[in-house]
């Protein structure tokens, strides 16, 4: 079907020479034929440089390698230059420089085959989920943009199924981009199970998967830096989250990775959108899902003030209110997550309570999460890394030091959203322990009240 054997591998990608992994003869042949085109790795402008992979322009992100040395690179191209400029911002994906260009496929394009029966999923959607699913189908048909604003536990993934089904029937290439590798690891197996005939590639740092013309790419946002004009449907999960939110170059990567005609679906639970984004979104169709899939309201966070909480944490002691909360859980045989602001406090608390802890640099992070999920652990201490995406069916949640900077409004909303996820146990206790009541704490509570009110209204309309 694909006349060109290289097309499925390279269509829609922007790669370094060593990522192409071709023999020199094949590589030169493809260049000569014009099937591969070379793109300068760094665009050198008068006032700034721009990396053509990660699009950074920050001067501190660029480095120089001198070439007038005892042992220079033996390359004719470099005879007239004093140095090579390279990008330090995305160097973990291989070095892009004025000497190491990027390559894009320019030969016949590949499309994944159209699938007659992409899914075996027989679940049912709630009326609200259905509303979002239909809006997404519309967006895919019209190749337009849609924002789905759904509370944690609204059943986001199932909402996508109808749209995905239509996309795969049409042979569209779809990408779900999310900021966290944990989410990729959780989402990809679910989608493989529910869409068994679909080619799925799960991409994150350290993955073995390769995307050879897959129907569906589930990837961390950083992986998008290897794409160009690739996807017909782009679903960006947690638009508000780090690093998409902080890194201005990632929106550019999203824009580059889609085909000229495309559907763009944004998903978010939390309203942390900067003003610029918000104003732009006014022109975007928005669907709001204030209710969880099981129809129960969001658990309202309890606020508990503890004097000198941070001194306690520093000294490694625990105030009574908190030990009491933990004992209550234990007595009721409730499983729980304790969120703490820093790795140090996680470590100290773990020692004191004899409860395992995870943080962003834990080497056995996947294993710990796995053990908590299959109930080998009764409790887990965590930094903000478990704030999003990863879900456990029936747990209580406490934030110890909720007034710390790392817990902004969105983080607190997401954390509270970990509780009461299952229909059999929709309540779950959420408690914020803090010394000073911050704006974020107040706003996170207001958000919950507001969403629960909206949800109630909707339920009334429907019943």
């Amino acid at each position, binding site marked *: 079907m694909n006349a060109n054997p290289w097309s499925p591998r390279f269509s829609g990608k922007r790669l370094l020479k060593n990522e192409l992994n071709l023999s020199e003869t094949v590589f030169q042949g493809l260049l000569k034929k014009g099937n591969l085109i070379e793109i300068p790795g760094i665009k050198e402008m008068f006032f700034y440089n721009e990396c053509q992979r990660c699009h950074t322009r920050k001067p501190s992100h660029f480095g120089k*390698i001198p070439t007038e*040395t005892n*042992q220079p690179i033996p*390359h004719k191209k470099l005879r007239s230059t004093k140095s090579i400029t*390279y990008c*330090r911002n995305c*160097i973990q994906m291989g070095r892009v420089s004025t000497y190491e260009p990027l390559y894009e496929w320019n030969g016949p394009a590949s499309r994944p085959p159209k699938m007659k029966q992409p899914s075996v999923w027989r679940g049912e959607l709630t009326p609200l989920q259905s509303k979002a699913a239909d809006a997404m189908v519309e967006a895919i048909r019209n190749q337009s943009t849609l924002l789905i604003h759904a509370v944690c536990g609204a059943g986001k993934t199932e909402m996508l199924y109808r749209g995905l089904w239509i996309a795969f029937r049409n042979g569209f290439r779809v990408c779900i981009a999310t900021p966290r590798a944990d989410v990729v690891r959780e989402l990809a197996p679910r989608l493989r199970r529910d869409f068994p005939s679909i080619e799925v590639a799960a991409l994150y740092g350290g993955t073995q998967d390769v995307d050879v013309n897959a129907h569906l790419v589930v990837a961390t946002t950083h992986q998008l830096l290897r794409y160009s004009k690739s996807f017909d449907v782009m679903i960006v999960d947690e638009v508000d989250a780090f690093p998409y939110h902080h890194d201005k170059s990632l929106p550019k990567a999203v824009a580059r990775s889609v085909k000229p005609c495309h559907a763009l679906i944004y998903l978010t639970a939390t309203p942390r959108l900067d003003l610029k984004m918000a104003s732009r979104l006014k022109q975007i169709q928005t669907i709001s899902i204030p209710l969880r899939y099981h129809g129960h309201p969001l658990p309202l966070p309890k606020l508990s003030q503890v004097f000198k909480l941070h001194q306690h944490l520093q000294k490694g002691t625990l105030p009574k209110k908190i030990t009491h909360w933990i004992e209550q859980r234990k007595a009721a045989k409730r499983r729980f997550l304790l969120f703490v602001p820093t790795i140090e406090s996680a470590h100290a608390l773990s020692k004191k309570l004899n409860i395992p802890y995870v943080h962003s640099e834990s080497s056995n992070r996947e294993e710990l999460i796995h053990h908590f999920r299959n109930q080998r652990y009764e409790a887990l201490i965590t930094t903000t890394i478990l704030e999003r995406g990863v879900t456990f069916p029936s747990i209580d949640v406490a934030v110890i030091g909720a007034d710390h900077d790392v817990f902004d409004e969105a983080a607190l909303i997401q954390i509270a959203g970990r509780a009461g996820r299952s229909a059999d146990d929709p309540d779950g206790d959420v408690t914020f322990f803090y010394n000073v009541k911050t704006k974020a704490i107040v706003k996170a509570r207001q958000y919950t009240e507001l969403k629960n009110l909206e949800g109630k209204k909707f339920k009334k309309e429907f019943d």
Partner: protein
Amino acid sequence: MHCKICLQSIEKDTTWSTLFDFRERTLCLSCDEQLEKIREPTCKKCMKRTEEKLCSDCMFWEQHLGEDPLDRNISIYTYNEYMKEMMSRFKYRGDYEIVYAWKDSFQQAFHAHFSKGIHLLPIPLAESRIFDRGFNQAEALARLLDQPLFAGMIRTGQEKQSKRTKWERLSAKNPFELIETPPENVIIIDDLFTTGSTVRFAAQLLKKAGAKCVSSLTLVRS
């Protein structure tokens, strides 16, 4: 100013003590903290961590070479996990600018142990490595010191030595060749000093060709 490792701005953690330090800072405090300097007691000759005067490595070389061609090695850091990670970014990812993170300590070590004007010999790298990486990491380090470089040695043998035993290394062919007469005093520069075989191969050639004093300055003693 930005930290050469984490790329974050360093103005933020300026304290009173750093405020009056007019040297250009290339590292933020939290990255700097993770680098670990070698502490006493060490081998008097190669700075390996040991209670003995002379470590077993150095004894081995003295026994088997008759006379050790290397007069002394100075190293600065230990090969902890953090340094391993930095080295892999520097050498395998080819992030040249990492070298400036070590600038201050490398210069200080040089001035504490050697006098100005002595020729530096960065350990030459195989051509194929230069092609991939774009630079010789030993030369990058040598260039931090602003001293004359001696470029009269080339590498003819292959690179990977770490998987060999001491005996195999000893009997291996010297991977270097001299193409110029060396100066009287030479300081060999390299990134890692593990058993010292690479540095000693180079020192052997230099001494044979008439060099009087050959020392080495290496960033890491592992």
